[in-house]
């Protein structure tokens, strides 16, 4: 007798489960057809706190090296060239290895001028892993460190610098 009761109860619970599944036919689906069937690219709809690829605005970098020190895995490499006669400093290298970075955000917190910040960019696939070293100061270029007294330059859209760097690596016109 127990045998048949078990079969009956099993059948009932299967039907109950099917009823739940069936009810989902009439509810709004949660799935999104990414990436081609969304109204806006995902980069634009992600929250501003999102920790995506790093971006450095070298115009407002003070070359204080706080981010380099804060990084636990030495992702950021900054070189500052100091002229011993004129005491003038120039940033000659600012590399961020996006392949090694673990996107923890410790460098961003230390930056006094928000020169280094996260973007909402995340798609950075390249055929060569070396392409992921983001060189914010091109070889041969020399940037003057920003002085907090100066007027800040016009703001650029977040992610524009990194996106341009990635595009140039991929050969996108």
């Amino acid at each position, binding site marked *: 007798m127990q045998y048949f009761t*078990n079969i009956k*109860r099993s059948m009932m619970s299967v039907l109950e489960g099917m009823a739940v599944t069936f009810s989902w036919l009439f509810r709004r689906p*949660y799935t999104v057809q990414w990436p081609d069937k969304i109204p806006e690219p995902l980069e634009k709809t992600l929250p501003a706190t*999102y920790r995506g690829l790093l971006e450095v605005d070298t115009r407002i970098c003070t070359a204080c090296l706080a981010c380099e020190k804060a*990084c636990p895995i030495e992702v950021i490499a900054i070189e500052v060239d100091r002229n011993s006669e004129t005491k003038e400093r120039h940033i000659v290298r600012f590399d961020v290895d996006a392949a090694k970075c673990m996107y923890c955000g*410790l460098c961003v917190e230390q930056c006094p001028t928000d020169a280094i910040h996260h973007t909402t960019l995340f798609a950075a696939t390249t055929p060569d892993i070396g392409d992921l070293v983001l060189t914010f100061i091109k070889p041969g270029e020399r940037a003057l460190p920003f002085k907090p007294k100066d007027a800040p330059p016009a703001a650029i859209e977040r992610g524009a610098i990194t996106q341009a760097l990635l595009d140039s690596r991929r050969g996108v016109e």
Partner: protein
Amino acid sequence: MIKQELKNIDELRILREPVEGEMLVNMGPQHPSTHGVLNFLLVTDGEVMHRAVPHIGYLHRGIEKLAEQTEYAGFMPFTDRIDYLAAMAANQAYAMAVEKLAGYVVPERAEFLRVIACELNRIASHLVATGSMAMDIGAVTPFIHWIREREYINEITEELCGSRLTYNYCRIGGVSHDLPATLAGKILLWLDHFEPIIDEFDRLITHNEIFVHRLADVCAISAQNATGYGLVGPNLRASGVDWDLRRDKPYSVYDRFDFNIVLGKGFRGAVGDSYDRFVVRVLEMRESCKILRQALVALPAGEIRSKVPRVIKPPVGETYAAVEAPRGELGYYVVSDGVSSKPYRVKIRTGSFTAMSIIESLSKGVMIADLVAIIGSLDVVAPEVDR
């Protein structure tokens, strides 16, 4: 009946030369029902297991040693990687340990934010634990429903701290981001949506007769065995042992909330069987919802980070701080030498490691298919075992 006794690890070699009637089967490291990269050596006689020897170390990354190379604040992102399903608890435990060592005070708002984040994370972790356990047993549908709910939590944490999995939310002396009022409303909205979904989940799988018969009375752990092997968290409570760090050693602001500790009562079989461990997790999600509602209402205004020097150098000493993570007590033992800005030693105690050690004694005389139920119900996460 066990034909071969294993006394030390060198004797594993002997296992590879099976005696008559016994067969050695490798389960893992790439088996879909071993959560993560785990390897089990099964000594079997047909379908019946004589022994299952867990092999750990496939995911050893030397996180404890890495701590000695990084500064106190810089070690925080590494703690995310200890348990990828419940990174928030690992963050909080480490922050608590260093704060205790250096004597920093955490603002009240930060404590509340930590609790909110941790409880959200606990729900997310239990969703994966119960969902993947159901999937291991053979029910795929609940897992998909749970992943959908977890997606909402991921979106909340993404907005809160910028990341979906490796949160890195706690800082020594506070938290990294404040909770905007709109997000608090979003969490409440989600809770209103989620609590009826648990009822639906119960209809879908928890009270399913086939599922209950598959798990009830399978591999029951007695209270004595559970404490003897050092089980913690839901695994311990499922065996009927009333122990929860949130209530018994209140840390953070947990003593201000009203919530119940869920105990295994032998819901459909013996106390401490696989089904109890499953149900305890489902019920704990409801308790977490209760804590979340209270915390969001009582959330005080104020600072989220206290003033902490940029380079942290705690005085000479050692300390231990533990939190009740979704997989039980997760503790950090931190030693400072007083001179360096890096820890002298960090030892991490996790719940999955002890859960892993009981598998060998549990697996005597059960079927191979039940091993999947054991691993699933103990909620073993491989990176937490190896660190």
